[in-house]
């Protein structure tokens, strides 16, 4: 029977009441008495030498408080990069300076040149129009293949080239992989593009800097997935404000998808300027501005090859990728095409030899960084498109080829440095075949044919590394921070609980699912427990939410802290019940003396902790509050199998998704409804990437899809009803909840399933010359492929 509370219950998302009734408190809802507004004058060209900025007229305009340019930031730090990748030759990556406001050069459309602070937003914009910028246009470097050529225009004059790094993984395997290809019975090669995406959270970014002269404290309110990370980066590297004088608050956040992980110039600016003018400074990003200043995602160009023996066993994989960094290194950018990508290249398969080469490239485009899935969707897309192509070349069933090569024994050490602790890829594939009704597919195909439509089936398997991340390991790989998390469980006198967590909820439903765990452990009502997050002054510490890490890492810290609470509460109960501690059990919110009818309630114990009249004060302290930090010992490895069925209209090239099924293994599941919702959202985004979205620059570095007139977002009518299942559960072996994380799976598993389905549909219509179509698989691209 389904549970109605605690772990495994589909408790209703309590935060939705405020979101759906307009009571959410977003950063833009915060207004500080006397605040001024900043507008950023941004470069309209992709590359240019900045010879001067004349603000003299603008400064005299009505309402203008102060105007800042790059020279005001000469003594201030630049925006730091949080990850240093070491290249094939053991050298550190090239790391350019990233000033808060442009100095000397502008390097992408949207690069901020000046910041105008005024009494109202429109006065700031008016003044911006009066600023005269002396900008000498330089040729723009947009195409990655051009950017890495000898003699290409350099994005950063002080670097040796546009190459950030040339990464080989695992470098020692390179020759062995080469030999395996020479001995292969069959080799399949595929060149593909994983196109640039713009994350487009519903809420654009907002930052408010405030400074309190009385205690010399700065506060930044910001749309962030990880306020402590921002405090760390901005305080230590940019502005030199010590932690105890810097508070970062990220209240309700309207979607992040990765793009709100990073530390942005506007945050540093508002915090810095508030101190300079002794007034709060607010910035609200417009949608047009978001397109040109938010970090984008993906943007890889790859050649991938698969070697097989005569029995169709995978023997080796080799990839060559160009990964766009944009003009500057965003916070985690270097890690995405390397450690979040190369390490996943084994997928669900026992390929013994793998070599991944990634060249990260600077271009005159906005920075590219993690976006839902980050590196893992790119790896999965390459591998799963390639396997499909291989199956077609060999004339074998794509499911059978996958099954034959599945990893079946765990733990499994891949040739790309990670160890999958557990999984059951056969089980998820079996489940998929059932929920997707694959046996009925041929009949559905015939029916579509009768309607003049081409029907195709696309299969995809994925594996991801989540629960980011073991600190010691990522430290060796170049991370400049630890990736543990923390939680404080504060039990109040009446027994209600506030849990201060380092994870940040911006749509994931933590306020519902986290209390379910504590409620289960203590046997009390979920309604007695609240989550506090998003404020560095309220929570102990935390690295935030991304990489499907919240429940696996922060949830584990919360479990550890709750275990400490239980230990102490049992001590108190044993005192109250005059029994030995070893004889006390906590069950359904009651402390019982095992084997007797003696018991006391949860509330008796919590009250005693705060009113310690009858209390073992000589042994333990009063109060009931515990903190735990948790550092995972490995990543978690969610995995699954997805099936997509499409209809293609051969006359127009339009693709319609008719069915979509997902069988995921997330280990243990806290709230099945929330997990389904996360998968639904991920699939929606995956369909967006597969069919619709494209951040596309022209050769001059102008963003052609810089608004919703040209950037196509998925809408409800673009997706079918999803069939999702997460009943295949191989619990994670190394965290206390046995959970793996579910936030990114949909975005990782979906794009290859969709594209595989489209190719299958075209083949069924006799268009067998079409072996690949790059995403987005738009009607015009499909039509051109058919008629090409």
């Amino acid at each position, binding site marked *: 029977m389904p549970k109605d509370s605690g772990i495994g219950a589909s408790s209703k998302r309590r935060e939705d009441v405020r979101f759906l009734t307009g009571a959410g408190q977003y950063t833009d809802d915060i207004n500080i008495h006397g605040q001024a507004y900043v507008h950023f004058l941004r470069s309209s060209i992709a590359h240019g030498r900045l010879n001067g900025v004349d603000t003299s007229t603008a400064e005299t305009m009505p309402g203008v408080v102060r105007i800042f340019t790059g020279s005001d930031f000469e003594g201030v730090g630049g925006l730091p990069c949080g990850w240093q990748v070491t290249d094939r030759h053991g050298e550190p990556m090239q790391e350019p300076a990233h000033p808060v406001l442009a100095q000397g050069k502008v390097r992408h459309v949207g690069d901020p040149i000046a910041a105008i602070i005024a009494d109202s937003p*429109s006065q700031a*914009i008016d003044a911006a129009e009066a600023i005269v910028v002396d900008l000498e246009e330089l040729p723009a470097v947009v195409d990655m293949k051009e950017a890495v050529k000898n003699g290409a225009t350099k994005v950063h004059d002080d670097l040796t080239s546009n190459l950030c790094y040339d990464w080989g993984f695992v470098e020692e395997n390179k020759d062995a992989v080469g030999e395996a290809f020479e001995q292969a019975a069959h080799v399949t090669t595929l060149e593909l593009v994983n196109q640039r995406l713009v994350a487009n959270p519903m809420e654009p970014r907002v930052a408010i800097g405030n400074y309190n002269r009385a205690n010399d404290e700065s506060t930044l309110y910001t749309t962030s997935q990880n306020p402590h990370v921002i405090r760390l980066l901005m305080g230590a590297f940019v502005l030199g404000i010590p932690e105890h004088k810097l508070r970062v608050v990220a209240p309700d956040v309207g979607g992040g998808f990765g793009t709100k992980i990073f530390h942005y110039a506007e945050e540093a600016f508002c915090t810095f300027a508030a101190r300079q003018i002794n007034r709060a400074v607010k910035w609200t990003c417009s949608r*047009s501005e978001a397109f040109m200043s938010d970090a984008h995602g993906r943007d890889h160009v790859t050649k991938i090859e698969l070697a097989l023996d005569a029995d169709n066993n995978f023997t080796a994989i080799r990839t060559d990728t160009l990964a766009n960094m944009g003009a500057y290194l965003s916070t985690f950018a270097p890690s995405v095409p390397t450690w979040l990508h190369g390490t996943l290249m084994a997928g669900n398969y026992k390929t013994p030899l793998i070599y991944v080469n990634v060249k990260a490239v600077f271009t005159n485009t906005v920075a590219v960084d993690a976006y839902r899935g980050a590196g893992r969707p790119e790896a999965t897309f390459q591998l799963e498109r390639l396997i499909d192509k291989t199956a077609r070349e060999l004339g074998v069933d794509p499911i059978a080829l996958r099954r034959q090569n599945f990893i079946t024994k765990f733990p499994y050490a891949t040739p790309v440095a990670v160890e999958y602790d557990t999984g059951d890829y056969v089980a998820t594939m079996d489940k998929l075949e059932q929920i997707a009704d694959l046996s009925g597919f041929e009949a559905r195909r015939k029916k579509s044919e009768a309607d003049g439509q081409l029907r195709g089936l696309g299969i995809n398997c994925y594996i991801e590394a989540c629960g980011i991340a073991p600190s010691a390991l990522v430290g060796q790989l170049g991370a400049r921070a630890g990736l543990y998390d923390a939680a404080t469980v504060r039990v109040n006198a009446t027994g209600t609980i506030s849990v201060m967590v380092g994870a940040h909820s911006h749509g994931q439903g933590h306020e519902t699912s986290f209390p379910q765990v504590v409620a289960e452990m203590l046997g009390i009502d979920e309604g007695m427990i609240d989550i506090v997050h998003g404020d560095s002054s309220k929570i102990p510490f935390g690295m935030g939410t991304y990489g499907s890490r919240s429940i696996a890492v922060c949830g584990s810290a919360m479990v550890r802290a709750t275990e400490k609470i239980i230990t102490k509460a049992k001590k108190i109960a044993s005192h109250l019940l005059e029994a030995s501690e070893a004889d006390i059990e906590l069950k359904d919110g009651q402390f019982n003396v095992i084997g007797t009818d003696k018991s006391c309630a949860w509330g008796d114990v919590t009250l005693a902790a705060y009113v310690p009249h009858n209390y073992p004060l000589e042994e333990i302290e009063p109060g009931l509050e515990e903190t735990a930090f948790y550092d995972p010992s490995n990543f978690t490895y969610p995995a699954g199998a997805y099936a997509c069925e499409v209809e293609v209209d051969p*006359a*127009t*090239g*339009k693709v319609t998704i008719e069915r979509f099924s997902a069988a995921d293994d997330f280990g243990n599941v806290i709230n099945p409804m929330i997990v389904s919702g996360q998968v639904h959202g991920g699939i929606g985004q995956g369909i967006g990437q597969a*069919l*619709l979205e*494209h951040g*596309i620059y022209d050769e001059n570095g102008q963003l*052609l*899809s810089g608004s*919703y*007139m*040209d*950037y*196509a*977002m998925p809408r409800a009518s673009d997706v079918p009803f999803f069939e999702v299942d997460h009943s295949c559960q191989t619990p994670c072996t190394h965290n206390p909840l046995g959970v793996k994380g579910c936030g990114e799976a949909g975005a990782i598993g979906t794009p290859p399933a969709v594209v595989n389905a489209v190719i299958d549909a075209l083949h069924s219509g006799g268009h067998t010359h079409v072996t690949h179509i790059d995403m*987005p698989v*738009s*009607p*015009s691209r499909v*039509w*051109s492929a058919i*008629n090409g």
Partner: protein
Amino acid sequence: MYNFEFVKPLSVADAVSALSDDGAQALGGGQTLIPTMKQRLASPDILVSLANIVEMRGVKHFSGNVTIGGATTHEAVAAADAFAGLTTLAGNIGDPAVRNRGTIGGSLANNDPAACYPAAALATGATITTNSRDIAADDYFQGMFTTALEEGEIITSVTMPIPEASNYQKFDQPASRFALVGVFVAKYAEGVRVAVTGASEDGVFRWSEAEVALSANFSADAIANLSLDASGMIKDLHGSKEYRANLVKVLTGRAVGLAS
């Protein structure tokens, strides 16, 4: 957005006089003009709202014609169900918010090359009535964003002869959901008219070869051997010239098949 004055005249005459001011501009539903002003790409000093002019609202039928007030919203046109093609067209413009504000007069005055109404007006041989004259649709559309309207001239109504059968086929541009290509087919006793929007660099146009073929034989087969010259077609992120030329033909065939 820059600051502006806002006036709400109650009659066409008052609107015309308000528009005689330099820097005054008519405001229909604001679905094009307001976003343009927000981007600071338009900066009228005075906005003259046409929304409260009762004589410019509503849909009336008489002797085989339908007359639509220039300030009538897309939603009202869809609800009036004047004839099949027009109802589908109006009901599929943008989203409910756009349909509840946007007006036929604004759409025709703007003459966006991807807008839907120009196809209906041209295919039905509509008469565009302004505060000072009647303009035949064939003379009205003069290329992308260009019309026969004079400065300050207001579209007060549009009159369309009701066809025997009609259909509008819109192929959505994936992002904006304007027409990547839209084809309006209208069948009259005197012959068939086919108007195409979204496709040409010259804006909405009549596909005359198709009209001749369909007037002789109103079936998709009649155009099977026709092909459209792709050279004057629009090329952008969402489709090549050839793709658009293909869509024109495919959608025309479908419109004929579905005309009612």
